């Protein structure tokens, strides 16, 4: 097990090196240069030359890459061009927003998906089973931003039940020591703020959670159906255990392995969906941050931000692999 973890951690090294090269080259391939992005189209040649000098854009490429890696290792990503605030500071503010949203989406999909899949398998071939199959097919076929727009239109615009944009009402101010607003409002002991934050989370979380919900329900159904016909389940029933105990101890517990894997895989994929969901709800997370940065050619944010996101994504996938290995005795014990 330890060897497996060490091996996977070592594999991270080439990935990170490759990533930094890729991001470095990508930034330089973007149309428009930092100079024109900073100074506008009508800058004087002298001003452009000064900016090129400042960013070292006239140095040989390998020296530029070396300088880039050096700033990375110091965790110094410079200041955002549009807000003039340090990139790291903005990241610390934006990142918890996306994590909070992703966790809420995952919670929604797990709490609904596993019982739904389980019930569908228990009533195999029944109405609920067919409904859940059709529902989960629709769930993976609806573009996330379309669902988000429809939800926003129905629940926020038409019915006025929930807020349309943002993380929190502007009328409420609380301290933000962690930038996880749910946690912040709990720490402040402000229930009104907590309720407000939760209301802002509901629609984005449901939209973002729709795909994992569909997939978790489907996998749960398939896994339970699979396990249900195993010999050990028959034995457990034959020795007179009550159906609920058989379900809990023998069926669900063994079905949990594929379910955990899929939950992990989906958690990584949430980052992709977050870009679109955040965009619909003007939610100030990583997704909207990067989209704005691409539009404004905000180089410092892009250099740091994309790398951050990729590292988080790789680490999440690594954790998934390790927990999978840990849960699966065949890998754990080998």
């Amino acid at each position: 097990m330890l060897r497996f973890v060490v091996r996977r951690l070592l594999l991270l090294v080439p990935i990170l090196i490759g990533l930094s090269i890729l991001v470095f080259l990508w930034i330089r391939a973007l149309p428009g240069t930092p100079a024109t992005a900073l100074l506008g189209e009508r800058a004087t040649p002298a001003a452009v030359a000064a900016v090129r000098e400042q960013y070292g854009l006239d140095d040989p490429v390998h020296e530029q890459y070396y300088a880039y890696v050096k700033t990375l290792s110091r965790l110094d990503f410079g200041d955002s061009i549009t807000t003039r605030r340090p990139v790291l500071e903005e990241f610390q503010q934006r990142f918890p927003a996306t994590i909070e949203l992703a966790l809420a989406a995952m919670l929604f999909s797990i709490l609904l998906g596993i019982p739904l899949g389980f019930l569908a398998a228990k009533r195999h071939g029944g109405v609920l089973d067919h409904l859940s199959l059709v529902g989960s097919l629709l769930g993976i076929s609806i573009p996330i931003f379309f669902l988000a727009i429809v939800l926003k239109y129905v629940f926020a615009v038409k019915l006025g039940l929930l807020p349309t944009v943002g993380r929190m009402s502007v009328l409420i101010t609380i301290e933000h020591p962690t930038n996880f607003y749910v946690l912040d409002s709990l720490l402040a002991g402000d229930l009104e703020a907590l309720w407000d934050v939760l209301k802002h989370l509901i629609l984005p979380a449901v939209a973002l959670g729709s795909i994992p919900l569909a997939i978790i329900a489907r996998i749960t159904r398939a896994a339970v159906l699979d396990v249900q016909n195993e010999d050990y389940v028959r034995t457990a029933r034959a020795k007179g255990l009550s159906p609920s105990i058989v379900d809990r101890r023998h069926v669900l517990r063994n079905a949990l392995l594929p379910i955990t894997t899929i939950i992990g895989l989906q958690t990584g994929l949430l980052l992709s969906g977050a870009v679109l969901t955040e965009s619909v709800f003007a939610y100030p997370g990583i997704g909207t941050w990067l989209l704005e940065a691409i539009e404004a050619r905000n180089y410092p944010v892009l250099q740091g931000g994309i790398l951050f996101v990729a590292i988080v994504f790789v680490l999440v996938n690594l954790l998934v692999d390790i927990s999978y290995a840990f849960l699966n005795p065949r890998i754990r014990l080998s």
Partner: protein
Amino acid sequence: MSIAELEARELQLEPGGGGLWSDAWRRLRANPGAIVGFVLVGLFVVVALFAPLIAPEDPRTGDLSRLAGRCCPGPSAEHWFGVDQQGRDELSRIIYGARFSLLIGVVSVAVGLSIGMILGSIAGYVGGVLDSLIMRLMDVMLSIPGFLLAIGIVAMLGPGLFQIMIAVGATQIPIFARLLRGSILAQRENDFVLAARSIGVPRRTILASHILPNAISPVIVQGTLALATAIIDVAGLGYVGLGPQDPSTPEWGTMLTDTTRYLQTAPHLAIIPGIAIVISVLGFNLIGDGLREALDPKLRGRG
């Protein structure tokens, strides 16, 4: 059930033992989900191919007088899906939009599939340093969330139909490369490969005519499902403002985005393109699921 019993059952159910493909086809036809999928995709393809014959009007030119000061008139006898913010017939735009979705979907999957397959087969069959090099590169590509990668590529290449196809295709390269490599590694050790090698069949011929045909079925399944993902990704790119350059292009994702401003007064303008996307994606997903079940060797011989 014992293995002997299982085998007996399989023998009973497979009289004459059809080949993999005829067998799969038989099972696909018996799957109601796949039939619905074929109908939806068939409809989608027919509409896309014969758009100029079906569409009542030109999708790009509108008549602002139809708006009569309000946006936008809903469905009527003349305009089944209503009129959009520029006075264009929404039905015609949806019909022509099928062309773009299908074209972009097919081309981008073709790009991802062919490059991915070449890389995957080299990695799987040649092995060694080349294998590690290719697979590490794929790891790096997979370490950026797919949709973000597509956004990055479009930002780099600039907006446009061709660039979108490349971007969406590129995100699918690592998926196909991994899939094919795994599949080939599994096939490489088979007896028939050993037999071919021992009688001196050249390596390239072994790969092309012995290994690839046997490793291809997961790729076909993934290819169908990838069409669904590609259509969704293209619409998503349209949504974040990276759609086709010409704003009059009837692309479903862009149509959906451009009309969210009129959601209050004309919700149909956003909802109809959305439903068109869902229907086409659903069709490919249904076929993909059906194919997966039909080609799964574990399920062979079960009705």
